[in-house]
């Protein structure tokens, strides 16, 4: 039954969801090389029964998965049972479930930990809130809590329901796969999980630079107007304008737009953040000024300059007349997919989201990508995307086995994220052998093996969990590099089935790999980081809705010409008088308290 389902659904085109799932496990890292560690067989590995081991060493052209060293003192004896909450749904081979699967059986053999499901929820924001609120209200928290939403987390903190893991973390966390992996972005990983210098949980980490923008542009249109890919804001403007004037789009006459934009100027797809970045500012972000105080970027004079520029571009027809009514995915389906737009500033995954529709609707469409443009003063910046999700992994106050859970997490993190280990889940649960030729197909995924699989959702704790939490934000990029630098050098006839399945790929997925590697390379350097990384201040809670509305309304109306450019000045005055000054004070109290 399960197999059939997956064979059928594998014909579906990948969606953004699939893409997100791909922040998959097999995608681990050339970290070994980075840290100079030699692959090691752990002590006690001989004790683990062969039938519990992942990989397919005995199949024709199969491969062997190497297990990391077993943490000191494990497996614990007598075994311990730990309760946890999980996000479902899962699919297992017959007879298995979330408490008893190849993952938990191997885990029990390695660590001595048995997991018991306290409660679960599916992909639904309200349900997870309801479940956690209920657990809080009935004072019945599981030992380990997966992806607690921030508002419940704040609630739990306020009522002292969570275990402070600071000391245990220092003693028991894996030096490379937890401590080193979560040290990126100047502590940005811990923006929620650390409160007043105390670690109150573990961060939820996704792929680095996942939403960092590149300029995606129609190569065939560039050829048609005889221009080359833009490197500055000025050139971007010239190209976009040329596209509009040549009216190269598929829609009705005059419907071609130069640059895709959405209802938020700074967003995850078809964003304008690199244009603001070219002036060194980012609307909605708090960044340090010369005197070391945080300042709210939306109220800075540079924003007025950019708004003036965007206003001119809108008047020239470079944006869709109604761009501000479109949500980001609608720009992907309508404008990019509808082949009415020539440029979008979108993340690497645009190669798999929007652009495939464009190519389907117009087989002659050719897309390419390039770095974001440089501003008039030589600045080149974009919104930095923090790979930390707004959820936290938490431990119940008084739970005595935090050290064991951390050790387990470190062990799995190494197994999953180091590509040398060659972990791709368990035969029969995550993939199966399709025929004599040794082709494998992933059973745990709607995509094929080459694109990753989501078997990691069966693992308790990060890495793993439904939705793709990892500990190393560069795991996916490292995996791409490993694939290209190591596997690609193996002669075609000598590759095993896992290599075969992951190597290759069509033009767009190769383009996605390239863009991904590039975006991660520029990740820390080109990003403007929002330095305000804590819960809303009291005044924010009171007036943010009002100030944010005012800001969004003013900016959009200035761009579309429904308001004058000088209305920006009255916005700044209103913002400051309406609570902005008080908020700035509160934000800086927090900021200076941090340092």
């Amino acid at each position, binding site marked *: 039954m399960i197999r059939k389902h997956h064979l059928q659904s594998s014909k579906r085109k990948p969606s953004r969801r699939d893409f997100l799932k791909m922040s998959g496990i097999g995608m681990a890292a050339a970290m070994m090389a980075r840290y100079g560690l030699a692959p090691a067989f752990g002590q006690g590995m001989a004790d683990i029964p062969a039938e519990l081991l992942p990989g397919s060493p005995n199949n024709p052209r199969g491969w062997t998965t190497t297990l990391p060293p077993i943490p000191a003192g494990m497996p614990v004896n007598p075994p311990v049972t730990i309760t946890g909450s999980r996000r479902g749904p899962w699919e297992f081979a017959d007879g298995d479930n979330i408490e008893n699967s190849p993952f938990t059986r191997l885990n029990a053999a390695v660590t001595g930990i048995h997991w018991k499901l306290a409660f679960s929820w599916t992909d639904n924001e309200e349900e997870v809130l309801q479940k956690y*609120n209920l657990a*809080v*209200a009935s004072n019945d928290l599981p030992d380990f809590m997966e992806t607690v939403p921030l*508002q*419940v987390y704040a*609630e*739990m903190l*306020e*009522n002292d*329901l969570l275990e402070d893991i600071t000391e245990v973390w220092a003693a028991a966390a894996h030096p490379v796969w937890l401590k080193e992996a979560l040290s990126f972005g100047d502590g940005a990983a811990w923006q929620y999980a650390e409160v007043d210098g105390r670690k109150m949980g573990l961060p939820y980490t996704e792929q680095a630079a996942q939403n960092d923008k590149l300029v995606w542009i129609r190569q065939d249109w560039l050829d048609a107007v005889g221009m080359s890919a833009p490197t500055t804001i000025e050139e971007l403007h010239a190209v976009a304008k040329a596209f509009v004037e040549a009216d190269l789009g598929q*829609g*009705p006459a005059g*419907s071609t737009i130069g640059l895709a934009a959405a*209802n938020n100027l700074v967003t995850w797809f078809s964003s304008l953040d690199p244009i603001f970045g070219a002036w060194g500012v980012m609307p909605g972000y708090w960044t340090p000024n010369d005197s070391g105080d945080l300042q709210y970027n939306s109220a800075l004079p540079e924003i007025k300059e950019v708004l003036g520029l965007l206003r001119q571009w809108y008047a020239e027809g470079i944006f*869709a*007349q*109604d761009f*501000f*009514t*479109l949500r980001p995915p*609608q720009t992907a389906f309508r404008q990019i997919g509808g082949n009415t737009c020539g440029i979008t500033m979108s993340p690497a995954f645009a190669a798999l989201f929007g652009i495939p529709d464009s190519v389907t609707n117009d087989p002659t469409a050719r897309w390419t990508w390039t770095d974001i443009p440089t501003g008039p003063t030589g600045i080149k910046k974009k919104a930095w995307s923090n790979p930390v999700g707004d959820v936290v992994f938490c431990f119940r106050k008084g739970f005595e086995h935090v050290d064991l859970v951390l050790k387990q997490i470190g062990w799995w993190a190494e197994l999953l994220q180091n590509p040398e280990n060659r972990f791709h889940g368990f035969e029969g649960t995550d993939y199966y052998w399709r025929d004599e030729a040794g082709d494998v197909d992933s059973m745990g995924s709607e995509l094929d093996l080459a694109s990753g699989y989501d078997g990691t959702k069966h693992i308790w704790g990060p890495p793993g969990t439904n939705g793709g939490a990892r500990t190393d934000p560069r795991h996916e990029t490292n995996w791409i590099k490993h694939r290209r630098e190591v596997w690609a050098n193996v002669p075609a006839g000598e590759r095993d089935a896992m290599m075969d399945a992951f190597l290759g790929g069509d033009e767009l997925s190769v383009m996605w790999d390239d863009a991904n590697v590039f975006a991660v390379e520029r990740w820390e350097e080109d990003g403007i980081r929002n330095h305000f990384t804590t*819960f*809303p201040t009291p005044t*924010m*809670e*009171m*007036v*943010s*809705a*009002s100030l*944010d*509305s005012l800001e*969004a*309304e003013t*900016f*959009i*109306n200035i761009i*579309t010409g*429904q308001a004058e450019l000088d209305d920006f000045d009255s916005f700044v005055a209103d913002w400051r008088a*309406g609570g902005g000054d008080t908020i700035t004070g509160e934000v800086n109290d927090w900021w200076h308290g941090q340092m």
Partner: protein
Amino acid sequence: MKVRAYRKRVWANWQPARDYLKRAWPLYVMIIPGIIVVLLFRYYPMYGVVIAFQDFSPAKGFANSPWVGWRNFEIFFALPDFGRIFGNTLIIAIAKIVADQIGAIILALLLNEARILLFRRTIQTLIYLPYFLSWIVLGGILLDVLAPFGILNQAIGNFGIDRQLFLGSNDWFRGTIITSGFWKNVGFSTIVYLAALTAINPVLHEAAAIDGAGRFRRIWHITLPGILPTIVLLAALSLGDVLEAGFEQILTLYSPAVYRTGDIIDTYVYRIGLISAQFSLAGAVGLFKSFIGFFLIVLSYYLADRYAGYRIL
């Protein structure tokens, strides 16, 4: 003896009631589940309104959250945008009620005059079809239809009219909301009027026709007076909705550019909720709306009784 006689007299007095109960008890049993459901889901949760006067936190529960008096209401009324969102809510909701009622009456009259049954049934089905689609689905459709290069703009372009931003301009947004709300709901609203129309005795129409009355005269003198009580009743009852401007609809169709004309209480509170879980403020807003709704409902039942002879007790 005396007691016995007394008993007998009492039993005699109660006899009709007993007979009635003997006949009707299954009906009373049948409404018990309904009453339980109403008590459980309509009255029991009402004690939750206390959160409007608390700084509610789910961890502390209703019993232990600190009391803050009227603070949440003060915050709500002191919101800088309160006047704007309250005005938008009233304008959109009232325009919707008026358009819906008048449209439904006209449509019902037209359908009533249609001779061919198949035609009437088909039209009736078609006009109340959108009622069953969610705003999420309709929002996507409208976004396409009303886009700068959408069907509507193409159509008016053929008459030499400039492209309009129906969803993006403050001149058009309320009109778009009211019209699309009308389109979605009017078919369903006509059903009650059509039912009322069937109650009019056809003899009246026949007599008027023999006396030489034309269609419009008959509508004016027979049909309309015939459904007047229904019109008054529905108009009065819709008073309770004057703060319901259509949250889902506006949420799917609005954008920052039209906050000035399209932001309503519900969408604003939704945005407040996005920033942090302010249960208490949302509770206060809900209570405020219920409070106004309560008075309007009392008023509407009074009007319904006075002008349409409709009463529940």
